[in-house]
C-alpha cells in the first residue's frame, strides 16, 4: 500500500534521521533540558516509523502503540521536569557536566 505518492522508505529514512539526531543530541549536548528534548525526539522518531508501518500492514496495533508512547512520554516529562527543577534549586544550574558530586 502506498501513501498517496510517498513510499514507505521515505518515512523510514526520515524516522532514522530523527532517531540519530536524538541519540547524538543526548550524547553531545550538556544541558539537561536539551538532552531531555533529544530523548523525546527519539521517541517521536519511533512513533513516525510505527504509524508508517501500521499503515503499510493495515493494522491498528501500530497506531495504538503510538498513543501509549505519547502518554508514557507525558508521564516521563512530569517526573523529568520535576527532577530538573529540584536540581536547579539546589545547584542553580542544569549543566550535566557540573553534576559531579558523585565520582570515584
Amino acid at each position, binding site marked *: 500500500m502506498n501513501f498517496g505518492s510517498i513510499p514507505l522508505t521515505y518515512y523510514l529514512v526520515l524516522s532514522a534521521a530523527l532517531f540519530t539526531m536524538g541519540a547524538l543530541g543526548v550524547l553531545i549536548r550538556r544541558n539537561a533540558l536539551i538532552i531531555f528534548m533529544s530523548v523525546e525526539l527519539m521517541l517521536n522518531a519511533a512513533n513516525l516509523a510505527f504509524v508508517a508501518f501500521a499503515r503499510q500492514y493495515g493494522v491498528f496495533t501500530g497506531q495504538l502503540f503510538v498513543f501509549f508512547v505519547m502518554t508514557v512520554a507525558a508521564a516521563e516529562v512530569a517526573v523529568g521536569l520535576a527532577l530538573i527543577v529540584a536540581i536547579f534549586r539546589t545547584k542553580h544550574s542544569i549543566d*550535566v557536566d557540573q553534576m559531579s558530586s*558523585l565520582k570515584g
Partner: protein
Amino acid sequence: MTQSDLITILPLLALVVWACALLLVDLFIPKGRKGWTALLAAAGLALTMGLTLAQAGREASGFGGMLRLDGFSTFLNVLFLGSGLLGVAVAYGYLKRMDLERGEFYSLLLFSITGMMLMAQAADLIVIFLALELLSIPLYVLAAFARPRADSEEAGLKYFLLGAFSTGFVVYGITLVFGATGTTSLAKIVEVLAAGSLGTGSLLLTIGAALILVGFSFKVAAVPFHMWTPDVYQGAPTPVTAFMSVGAKAAGFAALMRIFVMAFPSLSADLTPVLWALAALTMFIGNIIAISQTNIKRMLAYSSIAHAGYILMALVAYGNPAVAADSVASALFYLVAYAVTSFGAWSVVMSLEKPDAKGLEINDFAGLGRRNPLLAAAMTIFMLSFTGMPPTLGLVGKFFLFRTAIEGGFIGLAIIGVLTSLISAYYYLRVVVTMYMREGEPQAEGEYWLTFTTVVTALATVVLQFLPAALFALAAGAVLK
C-alpha cells in the same frame, strides 16, 4: 473482561489498587506515624504474595494473549514481592533515621513492583514497554527521594536521563520488530518467523532485536551501558539502591528472557556473539573497576554490574534448544541467589550508614568483627556468597551458570567467568579483612527490622544452598514454553 483475564492479572490488580488506596490513606496518617504506611504497604505486598502463591502452578493467558500467567511469571513475581517486603522492612527505620519520612515512598515502591510484575507477565511488546516505564518512573523519583541532598538529586537526574535514553532504544527496537513482522505479540512473532523468509524484513528484525538488547542492557547495567550505575547506586537512598539492584535488574532480565528465548531463537546466529561479548566485557570491567573503589556503595554497584555479566553468561546459549531451558532456569536461580545476598549486604551497609552519607567508606567497617560479631559474620557470609565460595548460595548459583555455559559450548566464556570470580575475591575479601583485622570503633544501628532483614537474608544465603535441587527444580519448572 473474561474470567481468564481476571485470573491472569488478579495479583497485579490487587497490588495496583492497594498502591492507589495507600496513596490516599497516607494523607490521613500524621507525620511521625508513617510506620502505619509502611505496615499497610507490607500488608498489601503480603496479600499479593498470597494471591500469587495461590495461583502457583496455574497457567492462563489474558487480554488476547498480551498477558500470561505461567511458572516463569509466578517465580519472578514471588521474587519481586519478596524484595519489596524486604525493601519496606529496611526502609522504615532508615527513612526515620535520615529524616526522610514521607509516606509516598511506599506507594512509589508498590507502583514500581507492579511494573516489575507486569514485565514478568508480559507477552506482547506493547505491554513490555508499558511495564518498563511503570517500573522505571517511580524508581527515578525514589532515587531522588533524599532531596534536597545534592547527591540524591543528581542520582535521580542521571538515572532519569539515561533511563529515558534507553527507553528510546527499546521503543525504536520494538518499532523495527513490528515493521519486520507486522505484529507486537511475541507468540505471533514466532509464527511469522516460522512461516518463512522475511526478505529485507529480516535486516529490520535483527536491528530491532539489537536495539531492544541495548535498551535492556542499560536496565540490567551491562558494560558498556553501565556508566550510570555507580553514580545512581551511590547517590540514591540506600534502601532504594538495594531494591533497585535486585528488582530492576531481575525485571530487566525477565524482559530479555521473555523476548529473546520466546520470540527470537531464530536470531541466535547473529545475537550470540553479541551476547558473548557483552557478558565477557561486563564480567571483566565490573570486577576490575570494583577493585579500586573505596566507597562501599560504589564497590557494590560495580559488583552488581559484574553479576549482570554472570547472568548474561547463562543467556548466551539461549538459541540452542537443548540448553535454552537450563539457561533460563540457571539465570532465574542466580537471580534468587543474588537477590538474598545483595539485600543482605545492603542491609549491613545501612546499619553502618550515618546521616549525610557518612560511614560508607570500606575503612568505616574496620573493627566491626570485634564490635558487632553478628553483623560482621553476616557481612562475611554475603561477601563469600558474592565471590561464589562455600558455604553459600552464591557458589551453587555460579555452578549452575558455569554449567549452562559449558553445556552450550562456551567454555572460553566459562573460563573468563571463573577467572573474574577469582579477581573479585580480592575486593570482597578485603571487606572481610578490614572488619576482622583492623582496629576501629564503628557504631552500628540496632534497629529491629534492619537486623531482622540481615539475619533472614544471611540464613537464607546459607540454608538455601542445602536445597539447590528443589530451588533449581522450581526455577526449571518456571521456564517458558
